[in-house]
């Protein structure tokens, strides 16, 4: 084999990466420092002006707060729910486990757009099943507004996100649970440890790595999540559920300020790169930082 053959074989993948990843990234970075319009193209450098505009915009800070809540709280709750289901599936109840395992993973395999539309209808104030059940149980009044209420819209979108993310957490936790050595539980049982103590002193410490990795991964994915919010609320009502990825679209394709949209993309990219670095460190060490 010639010395150059491996490089030649790698070339198509390299070219593909350059065109679909490196070029857009560099172009976006250039745009973020430029006065750029979709109509007239790039008309000059503006330095940090686009970044200033982003940080001066109150909508950015509102979206940043929403995104942080959406990502951190949403992922945290999804992990708790995922762990609960993983513990149930780990009870080894025979075929029921297989059936339930399949059922629980359905939300994960549904397209986020389809899931978003389904949740939109479930939460509809007049025809939604959620309102019907809650009103029948006397918990809320019939016709309660969820997605049309600035106070509840973000919570509803988070609920849908949790519903979609928990199966992934469940599968990962189940794998983690099954790798815990049985001897540890047996020794604890001999020492007379209760089920609760075994959970807190054996199960949870053994799941620390997988929990940390899942938390970072979940936050990264949620931080980047456009579909669910866009389909369910488009960031409304009155920007109450606006998150950063939807705001990028708003700046770039609604306000047609590509420079500002690019600057915001770079800010998100920097945030996610930091989180990804944490994730990679965890993976490489095999333990949480």
């Amino acid at each position: 084999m010639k010395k150059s053959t491996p490089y030649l074989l790698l070339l198509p993948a390299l070219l593909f990466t350059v065109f679909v990843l490196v070029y857009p990234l560099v172009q976006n970075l250039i745009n973020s420092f430029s006065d750029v319009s979709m109509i007239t193209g790039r008309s000059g450098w503006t330095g940090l002006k686009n970044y200033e505009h982003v940080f001066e915009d109150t909508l950015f800070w509102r979206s940043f707060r929403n995104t942080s809540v959406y990502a951190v709280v949403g992922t945290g709750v999804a992990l708790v729910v995922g762990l609960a289901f993983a513990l149930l599936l780990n009870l080894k109840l025979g075929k029921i486990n297989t059936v339930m395992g399949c059922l629980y993973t359905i939300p994960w395999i549904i397209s986020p757009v389809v899931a978003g539309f389904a949740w939109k209808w479930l939460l509809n104030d007049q025809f939604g099943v959620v309102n019907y059940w809650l009103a029948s149980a006397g918990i809320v009044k019939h016709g309660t507004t969820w997605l049309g209420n600035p106070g509840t819209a973000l919570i509803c979108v988070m609920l849908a996100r949790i519903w979609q993310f928990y199966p992934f957490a469940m599968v990962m936790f189940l794998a983690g649970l099954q790798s815990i050595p049985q001897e540890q539980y047996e020794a604890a049982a001999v020492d007379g440890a209760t089920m609760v103590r075994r959970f807190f002193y054996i199960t949870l410490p053994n799941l620390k790595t997988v929990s940390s990795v899942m938390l970072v991964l979940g936050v990264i994915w949620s931080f980047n999540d456009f579909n669910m919010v866009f389909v369910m609320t488009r960031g409304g009502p009155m920007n109450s559920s606006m998150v950063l990825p939807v705001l990028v679209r708003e700046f770039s394709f609604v306000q047609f300020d590509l420079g500002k949209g690019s600057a915001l993309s770079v800010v998100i990219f920097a945030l996610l790169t930091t989180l990804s670095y944490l994730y990679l460190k965890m993976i490489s060490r095999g333990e949480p930082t």
Partner: protein
Amino acid sequence: MKRPILMAFLLSISLLSCGKKSDDIVLQDWNFGGRPKLIEFLRQRVYSFEKLHPGIKVIQSDKSWNMIREILYADFSAGAGPDVMNTHSNFAAEFGEAGFYYPVNKFPDFEQVKQWYIPHLLESTRYKDNYYGLPSSAIAFVLCCNKELFDKEGIAPPKTWSQFREAAKRLTKDTDGDGVPDQFGLVLMGGDKGGFAYRMIPLFFKAGVNVMSDDLKKIEFNSPMGVAALKLIADMYQVDHSITPGFLAYTHSEINDLFCSNKAAMSIEGPWFRGMVGDKSPGKDMYVVSVPVPDNMIAQYDTAPTLQDMVMYSINARSKHLKEAWELLKHLRNEEADMFWITQDLGATATTKSALNSREAQSVNDLQLYINELNHARPWPPHPQMIAIASNIFTPYCQRAVVGELSPKAALDQAAREAQELVDAKK
């Protein structure tokens, strides 16, 4: 081993090169939005065009109406985009000024083609000295009233703001006796920024409010009557509770469902609404009337302007086949094609003189009302920033006023200030 692979490769190359290169001219036609019936009609039209012009092939793509601006901007700015497309006529200013649309008045037979159309409708496709498309269908915003609910209550469709407010109040009811209203007087489209603006502005126009001055230099929607129009809706929501509480999340489908299931009595809509309701709930009837006017303007009820919108077909200025695109445009929009708006109830109003004056037109539901409204209606001002102002400034501030976060005056004043900044920056 190497030889058979080489032979196979050479054979494939030679087979590929044997294929005759097609000399057909290929036109891209992008159709945004439309009910299935309209899309089917357009396909038939393209098919008949291809039969008439054997050397031209048309590739028709259907795209989302909601993403129209984003899709076209992205494509145009990349130097791409279709040869022919349908858009809002108020894009003439924005895309015409940007040089994205080709001025169709440059075609030698334009003066003849111009004669097909109702003059003031054709004017909506004009920006400065150029026409940037041919009218496809006209829309006047009207008030659609749920006939079943109005008849049951024994009230007539409202003509004035007081009657409008009173009717909405009377039609807001708790029908199942659980102490919570489940039928509302009015439904608004709050989940779509553009859609909301299009349903608010008719009330402003009917009250004689201008969005901008005639010279397009000054924002004027925050006039006292503009504030009064917004206050009317805010009071209906906050005081009377006669507007559906969840309106901020509603788009077309929710409004249609509420209307069809008798949970909403009124909605400000266009001519597509009867068809949409009919598709979902066959036989469901409605009163279609003019949008109400302020009480002191009752004498102008039939002549006060509503919002006119129009869909037009345009040509991409960068098309390599301008002449052929023009031929396609004419075929899609000639008098024969326009008759389908009359005979097939496609969800808007025809725009040619011959179609509107035809015998068949006499039997079209509400057509006389729409023609009358269109005779007086006004489009959004032809300012290149108008769409951005309506969607990103006017709508959010009006919504804040409706739900009570701001007073109507404060909301409109603030919106006017921001809109003026945008207009001044453009200058």
